[in-house]
């Protein structure tokens, strides 16, 4: 839909606002641009309707280079909502909403109908609000009008520049809810600039994190929270939000595990299993690397062969888990096979714990309590 290709913006004073940006906004998604102030997010947004011209690179909408479009015509086809709301105080609410349709030479009955329709859409009674002036409305109501004014001429694209950040917290929450519901209905392509991560995760289909003019990471809110690309993203998201939304293996495992060295004899293994009341032993080397598993069945089968050690009976082809694997991965393993326990290893394949059905249930219970 909207594509940035190697777009840079350098201002006359030498500050580079945007550096070699490549980015694609998909049709019908709500993409939030987020980052600390001065990261280039607003500049990026304002280049889409040519309020700012890039120094180099191209921006295309549906494949067409916007630098060749008439900027006035381009802007009339792109909705625009700003932080300061920007309703014209000398015009009524109705006149404000009808402005772009009028600029596009709609007929009066056409835009009058549209005004009523839009006011209804955000729960403002047209018979009450149409004739009022912006100064007679609360901030939250004003920005609702600001949002529907941007929708008035039915643009495919809407740009929103921190539209809710000047509102009080309650109005802000309401308008965020509104925009989520509205977007379900209208399915527009929305580019939404914000500095508020809560807001972004609440409303966005995808989030693009920027810093110092560069795109750092772009992904769905969930993926972004789970897999921050680097330290900057991690810090920007904030540690408290990074607590994953579902428990992972680390929450579900036992750390006391019955292990054995591969050189042990079978009698010894059997005694250990009895002592620990387990039906299998995890076999590790001296550095605690997981080598495999030996089961009670196998030990019993070969018990009479005194020459054999655990190493001979070792089952090396076993399923393991990483500590960051999610609960769904664990559930899948237990669901698909009859395994009673799955060892957990770190990146170096060192054993750090074990997940059993029981430990999983206990982990889930504790995790829930912890969260609530």
């Amino acid at each position: 839909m909207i594509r940035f290709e190697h777009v840079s913006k350098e201002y006359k004073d030498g500050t580079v606002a945007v550096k070699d940006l490549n980015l694609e906004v998909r049709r019908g998604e709500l993409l939030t641009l987020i980052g600390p102030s001065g990261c280039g997010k607003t500049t990026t947004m304002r280049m889409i309707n040519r309020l700012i011209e890039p120094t180099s690179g191209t921006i295309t909408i549906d494949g067409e280079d916007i630098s060749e479009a008439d900027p006035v015509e381009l802007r009339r086809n792109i909705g625009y909502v700003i932080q300061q709301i920007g309703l014209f105080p000398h015009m009524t609410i109705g006149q404000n909403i009808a402005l772009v349709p009028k600029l596009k030479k709609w007929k009066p009955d056409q835009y009058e109908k549209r005004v009523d329709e839009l006011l209804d859409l955000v729960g403002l009674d047209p018979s009450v609000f149409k004739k009022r002036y912006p100064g007679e409305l609360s901030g939250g109501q004003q920005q609702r009008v600001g949002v529907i004014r941007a929708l008035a001429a039915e643009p495919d694209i809407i740009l929103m520049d921190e539209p809710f950040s000047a509102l009080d917290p309650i109005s802000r929450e309401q308008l965020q809810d509104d925009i989520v519901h509205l977007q379900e209905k209208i399915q527009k392509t929305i580019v939404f600039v914000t500095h508020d991560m809560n807001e972004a995760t609440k409303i966005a289909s995808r989030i693009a994190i920027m810093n110092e003019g560069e795109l750092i990471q772009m992904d769905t809110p969930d993926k972004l929270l789970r897999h921050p690309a680097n330290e900057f993203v991690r810090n920007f998201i904030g540690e408290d939000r990074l607590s994953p939304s579902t428990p992972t293996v680390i929450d579900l495992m036992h750390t006391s595990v019955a292990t054995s060295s591969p050189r042990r004899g079978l009698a010894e293994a059997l005694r250990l299993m009895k002592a620990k009341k387990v039906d299998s032993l995890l076999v590790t080397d001296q550095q605690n690397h997981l080598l495999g598993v030996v089961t009670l069945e196998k030990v019993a089968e070969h018990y009479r062969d005194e020459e054999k050690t655990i190493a001979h009976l070792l089952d090396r082809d076993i399923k393991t888990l990483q500590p960051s694997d999610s609960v769904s991965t664990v559930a899948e393993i237990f669901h698909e096979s009859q395994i009673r326990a799955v060892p957990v290893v770190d990146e170096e394949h060192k054993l750090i714990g074990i997940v059993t059905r029981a430990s999983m249930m206990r982990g889930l219970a504790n995790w829930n309590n912890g969260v609530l």
Partner: protein
Amino acid sequence: MELLKTFIERKEDIWYAFIDHIYLSAVSILFAIVISVPLGILLTRYRKIAEPIIGVAAVIQTIPGLALLAFMLPLFGIGQEPAIIAFTLYALLPVLRNTYTGILGVDPSMIDAGKGMGMTSWQILFMVELPLSLPVIMAGIRTASVFTIGLAALAAFIGGGGLGELIVRGMSMNDDSLIMAGAIPAALLAILFDLAFRLLERTMTPRGLKV
């Protein structure tokens, strides 16, 4: 009693002088508006030259009224025209300065919104900047008109007519009531203009700006 008699005896003289006075003032203010409002708008687009130009208008205003009229004599002779030119020059500054500051004072986010919605720069001027700066511009026009009416009394010194005519004649004839016959209507006129412009300002201010 003397005064009343003078008013009755000379009511035609007073009336004509009164009309002349209004004519002189109104035409000068009109010219000042026609010149200053577009110029003020233009200066907001070329802000670098704004200060020098407003400076020139300010210098004109520091010249004493009588001196300015005297300057007109060698250039334009005597009569109404040189008087009107002088008063117009005088009225330029308040209108120019208020137009300039009024338009610059429009909230930049309003212009950003207008531009972002796809208004052309003319549409921004006529639909956003002018309506929003109108109260400030009107205040400038009101200031200009009140002191133009005061100043217009000096027109008589270069044969421009107006209520000053009666004052000058009264002074040369040492006739106090004749002086008053010129001065009182001139003062009333100034007050009247001020009130009229206040009213005009109020009716022209968009309703949404008053809440």
